[in-house]
């Protein structure tokens, strides 16, 4: 038995190292991953960055040290307790005291990085480190879900459009043209402004809709080349229905394209969300990096920390997802480079 096995193994082409042939599937996946990391160093670096962002996103309650909205207060050294009976803040101000003297606490705003506040504090005395960690959760959530929406809806429309052709195709393609003729940011603005205060899911849906157009186009062109293949003809002559052909024969052959679209899109959606937030039109009620960059712009030369750190966080996250996505694309289908 053992001999027969090694004979069969010997018949395999030499490219597979002898040690890899007898390994169980789990180990093989591990070896493949290791080889991927060695061969594509930039991709591996990207994967590491992505893992950092995801860990920050998932474990944010453990890592953030403080609540992202907590305002740090310090006792006011200039504070003079109001004379008993002579009461209200207004009365004291009218009595000639400045605002600096009448409040017992002041916010610890605009601190530079230090031991308590690793990345400093913002204009409201909130911890920038905590806000950046919480922002990672938003960025990951938005990037991944927007990409998921774009790719699933885009695949459905792209497969249908490419498979049937004719009028359906003409219709879908012109709508895609129309969507792509809009300046991207304007389209996002329009969708997001349907509500006075855009909720998170609407931002995600808007980004997904924007990506839908690209996905339809790419999936469709992949489907067009599959449709010509003999095995489709063969399956059809066996009596396969359109639905079965699309699901069982066309779809599995465009999976690589779909995976690439998904992974490459994430970085772009994070960037687009940052742009929206920067313009003040991002999701309301949550801490996002784009909002932090914008908030830090006032007095940039005096206390640049908030803008610089949150901007760097965006760059790191997008860089990670881009590099990982590029490596995956080169691995799965190098011909798609540049699309």
């Amino acid at each position, binding site marked *: 038995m053992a001999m027969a096995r090694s004979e069969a193994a010997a018949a395999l082409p030499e490219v597979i190292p002898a040690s890899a042939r007898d390994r169980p599937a789990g180990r093989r996946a591990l070896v493949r991953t290791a080889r991927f990391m060695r061969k594509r160093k930039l991709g591996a670096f990207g994967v590491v960055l992505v893992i950092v962002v995801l860990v920050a996103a998932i474990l944010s309650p453990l890592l953030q040290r403080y609540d992202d909205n907590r305002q740090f207060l310090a006792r006011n050294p200039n504070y003079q307790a109001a004379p008993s009976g002579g009461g209200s803040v207004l009365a004291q101000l009218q009595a000639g005291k400045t605002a600096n003297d009448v409040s017992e606490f002041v916010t610890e705003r605009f601190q530079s990085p230090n031991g308590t506040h690793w990345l400093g504090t913002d204009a409201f005395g909130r911890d920038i480190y905590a806000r950046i960690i919480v922002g990672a959760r938003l960025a990951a959530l938005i990037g991944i879900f927007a990409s998921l929406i774009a790719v699933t809806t885009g695949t459905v429309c792209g497969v249908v459009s490419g498979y049937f052709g004719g009028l359906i195709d003409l219709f879908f393609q012109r709508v895609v043209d129309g969507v792509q003729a809009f300046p991207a940011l304007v389209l996002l603005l329009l969708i997001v402004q349907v509500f006075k205060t855009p909720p998170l899911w609407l931002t995600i849906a808007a980004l997904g809709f924007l990506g839908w157009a690209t996905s339809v186009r790419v999936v469709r062109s992949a489907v067009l080349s599959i449709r010509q293949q003999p095995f489709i003809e063969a399956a059809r002559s066996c009596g396969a229905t359109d639905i079965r052909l699309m699901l069982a024969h066309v779809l599995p052959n465009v999976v690589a394209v779909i995976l690439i679209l998904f992974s490459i899109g994430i970085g772009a959606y994070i960037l687009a969300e940052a*742009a929206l937030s920067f*313009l003040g039109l991002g999701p309301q009620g949550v801490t996002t990096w784009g909002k932090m*960059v914008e908030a830090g712009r006032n007095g940039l030369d005096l206390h640049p920390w908030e803008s610089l750190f949150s901007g760097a966080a965006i760059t790191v996250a997008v860089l990670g997802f881009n590099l990982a996505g590029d490596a995956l694309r080169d691995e799965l289908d190098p011909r798609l480079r540049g699309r």
Partner: protein
Amino acid sequence: MGRYIVRRLLLNLLVLWIVATLVFFAVRLLKGDYVNERLGANLELSANNPVAIKQARHELGLDEPKWQQYFTYLGQLATGNLGKSFETRRSTWTELGERVPFTLELGTLIALLSFGVAIPVGIISAVRQDTWADYVLRGFSILSVATPVFFIAIVMTFFTLKYHLFTIEIVKSPHFWTDPKAAFFKYLIPAIAGGIAGGAGIMRLLRSQMLEVLRMDYVRTARAKGIAPNGVILRHALKNAMIPVLTVMGLTVSGIIGGQIILENMFGIRGVGNYLLYTITNRDYPPFQGTVIIIAFVVVTVNLLVDIMYAWFDPRIRYT
């Protein structure tokens, strides 16, 4: 070729109609209209005075049924009339005419910077593959692709402020032909930031295309024939590597004309992008719709031009 162009022009018309329809109904889906966004802020007109609000809506034609507004709008579009701004009562064309020069100034600078730097850099990076020059240039472009344009601008602003490099004149909105020095400093940061953001992608794509083309047999043949190395690179390799790059360059040009909304907004440049933002926040429908349609027109026209240019770069491409 002629038939192909005519067919594409007709399809473009269809696309423009889709854009016009989308934008018309999209703006009307938004919460609030011009009357309560702008006039409503005026206390006299708000809740106290429903008659005045009704009259204002009537004057602007906002009280007609949507489909009736839609057909009036399509009819106007067919004659090239983009409607009048609710706010200034001037035609959209006039309003755009004041904004386009700013956008073109910034856009030309961005295009010059991004194409002018990205193309030579992309070629050098490919020809000197795996040297330190390649690594530095590639690293820079990979980083730039991942950085939001506003962050590049903010970092540059930070250093300008910190070291008091120069001041920016925003209030007077100088043009290059009215006050070249002030205009230069005003556009300096946004142009470089936009140029970096736009050029990085082009450089990366051109590099990977050049690498592919440089390995082709005909390049080796050209070298073997004794053609000067630079001639091989520029005339034989570059021309073929440019085809996919053209598409991206077309998109950049469209983006420039669509206005750099963020950069214009950050640096107080009163161009098309800022105008779009302003009109949509005020729900000033006609100029917003008109501007979007003009931009869409430019985008589809540039796409068509790019497709026609393909045939020039690669004579094997034939359109029928």
